């Protein structure tokens, strides 16, 4: 399996950055390039599921993983958990609550947390990791307007 990053390029069209996660040299090179792009303000969009993208905020070169924001607005809108914890009646977290899992440990932000956090300007938020060796990404440069 190889990870690929398609960089939208002005002169060459779509240029592919491909790396083998098992090769340390390729992994380090890819990490430097990806981090450089993120630092320059490129939007790095990771295909977490077929035709479903999420933006990456960082890259862990040791584990070869993209770090993305773990917040799904669709799930958050459907969540009916109260602020103090998960509810078994919630269509998003009901199964996890029934199994006795701690919703917070699963890494999913509930609507209650989002509402509680709305009053405070909290930076960062939850992060999720996606294996870079088996995913496709598209890198888009900063916009000049239009």
């Amino acid at each position, binding site marked *: 399996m190889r990870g690929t990053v*398609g*960089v*939208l*390029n*002005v*002169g*060459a*069209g*779509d*240029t592919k950055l491909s790396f083998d996660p098992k090769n340390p040299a390729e992994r380090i090179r890819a990490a430097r*390039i990806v981090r*450089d*792009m993120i630092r*320059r*303000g*490129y*939007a790095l*969009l*990771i295909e977490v599921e077929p*035709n*479903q*993208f*999420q*933006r990456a905020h960082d890259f862990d070169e040791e584990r070869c993983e993209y770090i993305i924001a773990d917040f799904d*607005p*669709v799930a958050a809108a459907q969540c009916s958990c109260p602020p103090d914890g998960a509810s078994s009646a919630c269509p998003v977290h009901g199964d996890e609550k029934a199994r006795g899992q701690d919703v917070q440990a699963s890494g999913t932000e509930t609507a209650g947390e989002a509402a509680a956090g709305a009053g405070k300007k909290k930076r960062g938020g939850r992060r999720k990791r996606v294996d870079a060796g088996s995913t496709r990404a*598209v*890198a*888009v*440069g*900063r*916009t*000049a*307007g*239009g």
Partner: protein
Amino acid sequence: MPAAPAPSPSAERPAAEQFALVESFDNFSRHRRIIAAMAREAKEWAGIPMPLEGEQLVVEPSYKFAALFNGDEEEPVDVGDGQAGPRESEDDLYRVVNMWHSRRHRSTVAVAQNGRGRAQHVFGLSKQIDLDLRTLGCSEAWGVEQEHRALNLLGTMLNHRMFKAYLLTGMFLETSKRSGVVYLFRKLRPTIAIKAMTLRWRWSSRPWLEDGDGYMKPLAALCMHPIAYYADSWAGAMCPTDDVVAHLAMMRGDEVMFWRRCNQHDPFSKEAGL
């Protein structure tokens, strides 16, 4: 007897030879290759935009080579005062003080004023046909191979029906799962954000719109070109389908950032391209 048609540069020739043949008709292909090599050497991942004579290239300010492309502040435009003879002083120089798009006249109206307070207006400064013709000229910056690669990438991101629609019409639709907004992605035009609405009314009040499925209301025309674009045209520095890929990927990946990075034009303005 009519001459036998020349063989099509496809199927029987290797891909590299096909592109070489096509590029032999493209006067700018050599320039593109040189600029691409310079970008690789400078480790500029998104490449370097190609300047075109007579076209103003607007480059993203934090771009590494932005200073080379973005000129000095705009000099005052001398629109003249209608009088014969040389100007007496700088007070005679007119500066544009206001500009807007007239829906009625479907053109841009500008008001210019000189240092003595005398104002003049100008109609029809810029019409959509001007944008179209300029875009045609800017197409020299793109190559067939670049567009081909972008089409291949877009084909992996769409289902058959939408990709076929794009190939045949230059546009396709996608609904955001997050917001429910319908996006009309178009080649060489801003993306149109549309919301399905229904017209409601009561006898005692004016009609109003609410969420529904009877009427497609355009919310905004979202215009965004990564890295650079050519002023007063629809053309970006990237080939047309790369711009579409950028819009689609950003809408899917981070819709809020997509709206934030785009210029949001009034759907009825000239810039919307409707």
